[in-house]
């Protein structure tokens, strides 16, 4: 699924070359501008990678009337610009499409970043009908995604200038996290998170709204939703988990949007779960976690929260489930002291 389209400007989004017409900079290409807005409406982010001075990015925002989630204007290779955009937006290469009219630029990006979907402007009308550009569910959070990334940029700029620790910055930003039982209105977004999250996803498989609804209504399970806001903006529902309660708690799924990355939310959520389990008299919390290079951030958070694993269990017989063969169970012993919850988590 494509999460971000990175556009070239000269002779792509702009009908002309920015630096060749200083007196009257080129207008936006109407067909591609229409597609850009269509994609944004589907919750796909839009970004710029252009060999131009930064003013070209501002000009493109002006003539397209679109606020881009990330802009890289400069003289380096486009692959470096795309890598910077991926880092800024927390994206992996296989969720990025790159559009450029210059076949040489497309070839270089294909070579450096083989997982990026590289397209010519002429491909884009057809691409709008492709499944990679057509998410099944488009939630409010998805439609607001571009705006949320702009708030994130403001937050990151201020964080860089801020002298104190991460925790001090979170308090300074008036971070507010709430952890609560999921409501029926949360189910589309929780389903979407199960599809879109990779860096913070323990199960690595999506879960349907129907399955989520039955878990929410189950006497043996709990479905939790996590919301996040600060003075830069409201990120809405950013995470959730499925809990199987009992003498020992099991967490078949824990997931968090990469929007919450670096904001202490996953650590606070894991602590919250352990403390709730301890209050309920459970001896331990177990999180089965897919071992994949993509969810290293989650595994670091689990380790930081005191979870340990005995490794990937040996499989008996030949009919072993290939997913199970890569799953390790991380366990937190609740007789060991638990960290406190940060003050910005609402109880």
């Amino acid at each position: 699924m494509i999460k971000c389209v990175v556009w070239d400007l000269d002779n792509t989004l702009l009908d002309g070359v920015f630096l060749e017409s200083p007196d009257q900079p080129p207008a936006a290409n109407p067909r591609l501008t229409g597609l850009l807005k269509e994609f944004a409406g589907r919750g796909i982010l839009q970004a710029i990678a252009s060999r131009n001075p930064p003013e070209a990015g501002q000009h493109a925002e002006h003539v397209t009337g679109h606020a881009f989630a990330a802009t890289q204007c400069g003289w380096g290779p486009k692959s470096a610009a795309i890598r910077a955009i991926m880092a800024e937006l927390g994206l992996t290469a296989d969720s990025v499409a790159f559009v450029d009219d210059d076949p040489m630029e497309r070839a270089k990006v294909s070579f450096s970043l083989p997982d990026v979907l590289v397209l010519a402007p002429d491909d884009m009308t057809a691409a709008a009908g492709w499944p990679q550009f057509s998410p099944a569910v488009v939630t409010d959070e998805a439609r607001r995604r571009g705006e949320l990334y702009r708030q994130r940029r403001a937050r990151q700029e201020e964080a860089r200038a801020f002298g104190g620790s991460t925790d001090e910055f979170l308090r300074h930003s008036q971070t507010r996290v709430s952890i609560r039982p999921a409501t029926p209105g949360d189910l589309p977004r929780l389903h979407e998170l199960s599809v879109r999250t990779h860096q913070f996803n323990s199960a690595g498989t999506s879960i349907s709204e129907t399955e989520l609804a039955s878990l929410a209504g189950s006497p043996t399970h709990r479905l939790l939703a996590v919301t996040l806001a600060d003075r830069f903006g409201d990120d809405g529902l950013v995470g959730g988990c499925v809990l199987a309660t009992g003498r020992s708690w099991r967490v078949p799924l824990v997931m968090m949007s990469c929007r919450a990355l670096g904001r202490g939310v996953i650590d606070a959520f894991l602590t919250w779960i352990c403390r709730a389990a301890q209050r309920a008299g459970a001896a331990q919390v177990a999180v089965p976690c897919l071992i994949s290079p993509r969810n290293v951030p989650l595994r670091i958070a689990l380790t930081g929260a005191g979870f340990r694993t005995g490794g990937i269990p040996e499989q008996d017989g030949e009919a072993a489930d290939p997913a199970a063969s890569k799953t390790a169970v991380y366990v937190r012993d609740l007789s060991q002291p638990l960290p406190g919850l940060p003050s910005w988590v609402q109880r």
Partner: protein
Amino acid sequence: MTADLTSEIRQLLAELTGDSRPLDAPLDTALLRDGIGLDSLGGTVLLTEIERRYGVDIAAEDLNLDCLESIGALADYIASRLAAP
């Protein structure tokens, strides 16, 4: 070799955190949370950088990430992996 490696790792941690404390913190200083204060983002960047520099894929080899326990544990782990045939 471990001494050089330790100072390289201290340097890397200082760059990642934008703080000079890792340069002279005790070897048993924890890397996550209350120690050096790396979060999951910082930890991921650290592991990626270690794989790039030393070719040691800690995330795939050490599921408990015990080597993030301390500066010394991380240096020892990389040294032992580099010494292995």
